[in-house]
């Protein structure tokens, strides 16, 4: 599985982005949100029980993520049509404010190393990626255990909280170098 400090893989995938006719699908790539952090979270299968609560919870927090210059992106190995059917079918997912990636060829999940060996679908993995597409946080839960999006927000906050002020310098230390 890819880890902290490694580059998030390049990808170009169909994504379900809305229920509005003519605007339901869009191609999303790793280059789509320049200057933004990204929170990618994957789940095993659409139409299962644990997933909607998590996904809806990420949706409710997407403004908090946006305030921290972070774009949330969900994904599974289901097709964009399955994502669409699920969103139409489930009240909590109708107004989801972020794209659902369709990694139907399993290339992105394989590159990330998160395909479950038994089930062949994505594990419940979360990646926090910075504006330079470097992975800064990874977490994976076993298939049946839901995530806490509030915790992901807390981690993002912590990752973005560098002591950038010269007030932090101690006498005799080098000039503060801002990590680019």
């Amino acid at each position, binding site marked *: 599985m890819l880890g902290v400090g490694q580059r998030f893989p390049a990808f170009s995938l169909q994504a379900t982005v809305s229920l509005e006719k003519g605007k339901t699908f869009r191609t999303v790539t790793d280059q789509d949100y320049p200057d933004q952090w990204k929170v990618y979270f994957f789940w095993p299968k659409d139409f299962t029980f644990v997933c909607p609560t998590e996904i809806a919870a990420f949706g409710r927090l997407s403004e908090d993520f946006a305030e921290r210059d972070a774009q949330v992106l969900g994904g599974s190995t289901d097709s964009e049509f399955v994502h669409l059917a699920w969103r139409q079918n489930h009240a909590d997912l109708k107004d989801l404010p972020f794209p659902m990636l369709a990694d139907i060829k399993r290339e992105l999940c394989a590159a990330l190393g998160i395909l479950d060996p038994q089930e062949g679908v994505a594990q419940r993995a979360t990646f926090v990626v910075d504006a330079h597409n470097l992975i800064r946080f990874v977490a994976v839960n076993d298939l049946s255990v839901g995530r806490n999006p509030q915790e992901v927000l807390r981690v993002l906050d912590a990752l*973005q909280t560098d002591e950038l*002020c010269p007030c932090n310098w101690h006498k005799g230390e080098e000039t503060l170098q801002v990590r680019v």
Partner: protein
Amino acid sequence: MTFDELLNSIPDYAKDLKLNLGSAMEQSELTAEQAWGTAVACSMAARNPQLQAAMLAGASGKLSPQGLCGARAAAAVMGMNNVFYRFRHYASNDRYGAMPARLRMQAIRTHGADPADFELWCLAVSAINGCQVCVDAHDHAVREKGLSEETVLAAIRIAATIHGLAAVVGAEAASAAAA
């Protein structure tokens, strides 16, 4: 209240400050952007709304939009950092210095104004808020970024005068209200 109206409203007992502020805003050691950014940031640090309004009015057309954002960001972030880092300096327990601050300060990176100007405004605000560590650190930073000692002192003249005037403007408003 416009900047000139503010100057005209200053009572006789504070005539020195009135004249000092007028001169301070015209100092050749500062660009107009630097001077007005300092005035905006310091009027925020000095906490007087009327003074803030007058400085904002005066800055119009003289301070760029990025400069305005940077000056306010400096007052905001230093309002926070001056307390935090001064605490660490006050406390004899050194171990606080090794514990993470956990305070977001992304504005230091994202303010969009000229970096040297931003440091100058942080320095001026720190002088008002009274954090020694911050004053020293930002003084070094400003001079490393190429600004002169004369420029630094010019900004501090603005900070000092504005701080004094905040007390005057506040007192005058209280008198008027009580009358």
